[in-house]
């Protein structure tokens, strides 16, 4: 065990540990300045152990005691506390300290403004939808009598009153609900492009203007037919799609920010006088000496100055084993300090660190991806032009004979072509599938992923955590015949009890499972980083026995046996081998069945892993995968995927570690298994929660089914338009029938999409193309 010469540095500085937050640049990250006063701030903090109303009451009391705190509101439901405070009279460290005193340590909610921005956006969309639907229902009530009554049934002034009422009720829809479409259409016109929103907006505007004229100045060339019912229904249908889209995107958007939060906010720095002071992580400079305790994350790249430790760099390099860091070794930002406290000298900060380089790499790899959305918009362009031309043609065709009929026919074309059915055709089916997937534990980050997944022909798997469990499976391969086996297990349990190393923890769990006791008297226990552990035990015969547990080199074993196991661990005393244990990875329960099903459906399966070649090949053989590659670093994997893509293949990447991030971003599409780190989840197109690899098979087949239904929808919309447009141009289609046709075609598209809500997760779905 590496002993660090320094006592608790916090005690030495005797300062409030939250002092790092008292810098304005630091508190700005979780606070907003009050609109009324420059000195008043509203902060949001997270209290993890606030579970009940009583907790929130105590928390409010504790913070209120602080002079200068103007208002506190704690919510146990969201575990959040909102504090309004005056910067002239108090500072965050004071009330953070108050919370700590009563046993509710708080964390600053740094991403609060981002979260609230997204929530505000989503709520605004919902509010637009509520207004549109509510007004639509009222307008329908006034439209209904005119559908079914003869023109003589109702008094003309009653009809006129209903038109006025409808107009008033349509105003909120036009001025508030429909603004996203109108403003986006305007934006795309300014960029000299024809987006999906342009015909939509033209239809909305033309219908509204015509109806307005018909309401307030009936009898002109514009006639006296109103379209308020079609208009409000149309806007409502469109808004439902938009709102679902926004909601879906927000659900997964927070993940990237979580990853950025991995670096600590505050660090301990040695000041000029040699004392440890807490500073904000943003104020670290190159050359600073920092104190990093075990369990903390390195805030910057640098060198170990005093002490030695081991670091968990798995998220950054894919190295699954702890890396030994003696004095003089390089440590990287974002890696975790595992075993002991060290002092480090900072060499690189912020943008210059490997951590930032990796995050940037992921960002750039993801922008290289072809935008399927843009592609779809381009395909739609000719259609949109055709619709506009048809509308213009209708105007010219009728203008000389009857201007009212000309405009009405154009509106009928715009309404009946129903960009609604066309624009709903794809998202309705995809959203239905996305919702179904979400219920089944699969989150979708990009809707386009459904299309991408339906097209793939190659799947590249990462190994650990994807095909295998993260847990290591331990087996007692051999034990010395002269020693009591149970006693040996007791020794293993007792030695590995206090170590945090994953292998030691696996051994400890294994021994306990085999009825071992971990309560033997352990003397001189030492853990040598990168080697193993040594200790002295009293043997059953009473003699003192020095025991070593660790790898071959540490235990002095020169002729290590070849093995398919990932790793071998030895227990020795002196020259005598007491036991040999093997650690191997456990294949996930449904992995083999899933792989063989995927192969049966014509997909090429490949395996890439950062581990040694022998275990990777062994695993591949076990699962029936023909092509497996070991010792693959992140850059190698990226190269491999790019090579496959150059051969014209569509690659689906299934991974889970951060080292897969760039590969996941570069692949045609990607799926992350749920135990992955948040950043990868943010980059992958889909995230499978839970560990069941079997879901993949039905997921891929359901994506293909979704695309099939999208195509049916598009075909229906095309047929409907082919029939409706000529009728509308010829003026044979009355406005109400155009509106009804629009609603009916949308409804049909939606109902067809609803067929996707049924998802059978057991294997490949039958009965489809």
């Amino acid at each position, binding site marked *: 065990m590496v002993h660090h010469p320094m006592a608790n540095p916090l005690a030495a500085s005797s300062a409030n540990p939250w002092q790092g937050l008292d810098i304005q640049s630091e508190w700005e990250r979780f606070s907003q300045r009050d609109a009324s006063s420059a000195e008043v701030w509203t902060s949001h903090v997270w209290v993890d152990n606030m579970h009940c*109303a*009583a907790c*929130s*009451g105590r928390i409010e009391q504790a913070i209120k005691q602080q002079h200068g705190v103007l208002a506190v509101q704690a*919510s*146990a*439901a*969201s575990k959040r506390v909102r504090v309004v405070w005056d910067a002239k009279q108090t500072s965050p460290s004071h009330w953070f300290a108050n919370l700590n005193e009563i046993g509710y340590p708080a964390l600053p909610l740094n991403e609060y403004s981002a979260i609230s921005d997204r929530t505000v956006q989503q*709520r605004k969309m919902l*509010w637009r939808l*509520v*207004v549109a639907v*509510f*007004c639509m229902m*009222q307008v329908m009530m*006034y439209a209904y009598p005119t559908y079914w009554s003869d023109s003589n049934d109702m*008094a003309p002034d*009653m009809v006129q*009153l*209903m038109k006025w*009422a409808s107009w*008033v*009720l349509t105003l*909120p829809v036009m001025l508030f609900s429909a603004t996203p479409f109108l403003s986006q259409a305007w934006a795309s016109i300014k960029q000299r492009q024809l987006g999906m929103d342009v015909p939509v907006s033209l239809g909305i505007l033309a219908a509204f203007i015509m109806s307005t004229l018909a309401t307030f100045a009936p009898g002109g060339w514009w006639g006296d037919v109103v379209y308020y019912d079609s208009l409000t229904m149309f806007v409502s249908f469109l808004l439902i799609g938009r709102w679902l889209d926004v909601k879906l995107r927000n659900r997964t958007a927070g993940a990237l920010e979580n990853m950025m939060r991995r670096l600590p906010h505050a660090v301990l720095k040695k000041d000029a006088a040699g004392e440890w002071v807490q500073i904000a992580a943003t104020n670290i400079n190159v050359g600073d000496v920092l104190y990093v305790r075990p369990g903390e994350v390195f805030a910057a790249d640098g060198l170990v100055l005093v002490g030695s430790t081991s670091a968990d760099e798995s998220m950054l390099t894919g190295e699954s084993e702890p890396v030994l860091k003696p004095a003089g070794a390089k440590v990287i930002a974002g890696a975790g300090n595992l075993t002991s406290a060290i002092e480090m000298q900072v060499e690189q900060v912020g943008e210059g660190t490997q951590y930032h380089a990796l995050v940037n790499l992921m960002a750039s790899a993801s922008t290289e991806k072809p935008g399927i959305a843009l592609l779809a918009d381009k395909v739609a362009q000719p259609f949109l032009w055709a619709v506009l031309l048809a509308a213009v043609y209708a105007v010219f065709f009728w203008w000389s004979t009857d201007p009212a009929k000309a405009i009405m026919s154009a509106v009928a074309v715009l309404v009946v072509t129903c960009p609604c059915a066309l624009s709903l055709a794809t998202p309705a089916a995809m959203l239905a599938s996305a919702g179904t997937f979400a219920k089944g534990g699969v989150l979708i980050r990009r809707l386009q992923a459904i299309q991408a997944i339906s097209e793939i022909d190659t799947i590249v798997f990462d190994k650990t955590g994807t095909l295998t469990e993260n847990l290591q499976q331990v087996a007692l391969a051999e034990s010395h015949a002269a020693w009591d086996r149970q006693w040996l297990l007791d020794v293993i349990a007792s030695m590995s009890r206090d170590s945090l190393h994953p292998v030691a923890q696996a051994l400890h769990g294994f021994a306990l499972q085999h009825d071992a006791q971990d309560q033997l008297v352990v003397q001189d226990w030492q853990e040598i980083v990168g080697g193993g552990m040594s200790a002295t035990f009293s043997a059953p015969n009473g003699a003192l026995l020095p025991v070593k547990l660790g790898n071959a080199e540490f235990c002095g074993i020169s002729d290590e046996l070849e093995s398919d196991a990932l790793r071998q661990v030895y227990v020795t005393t002196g020259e005598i081998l007491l036991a040999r244990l093997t650690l191997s990875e456990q294949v996930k329960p449904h992995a083999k069945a899933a792989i063989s099903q995927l192969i049966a459906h014509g997909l090429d399966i490949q395996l890439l892993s950062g581990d040694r070649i022998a275990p990777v090949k062994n695993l591949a053989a076990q699962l029936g995968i023909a092509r497996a590659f070991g010792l693959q670093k992140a850059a190698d994997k990226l190269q491999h995927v790019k090579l496959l893509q150059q051969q014209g293949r569509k690659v689906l990447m299934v991974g889970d570690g951060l080292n897969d991030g760039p590969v996941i971003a570069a692949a045609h599409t990607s799926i992350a298994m749920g135990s992955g780190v948040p950043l990868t989840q943010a980059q992958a197109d889909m995230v499978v929660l839970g560990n069941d690899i079997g879901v993949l098979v039905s997921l891929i087949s359901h994506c293909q089914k979704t695309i099939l239904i999208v195509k049916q929808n598009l075909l229906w919309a095309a047929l409907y338009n082919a029939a409706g447009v000529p009728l509308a141009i010829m003026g044979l289609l009355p406005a109400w029938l155009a509106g009804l046709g629009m609603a009916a075609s949308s409804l049909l598209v939606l109902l067809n999409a609803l067929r996707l809500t049924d998802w059978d997760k057991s294997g490949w779905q039958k009965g489809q193309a």
Partner: protein
Amino acid sequence: MEIAFLLIPLAVLLVFVILGGLWWAIQTGQFEDLEEEGSRILEQD
């Protein structure tokens, strides 16, 4: 049927009152925390 000339404008007015009320409720945070407020009265000051 003359009453409809009064009722229809009233109904339109009611729509705006309802929408306005909902808008006010959301803006003032009436739906922010549905769990906590009910138990607030049970707490000691």
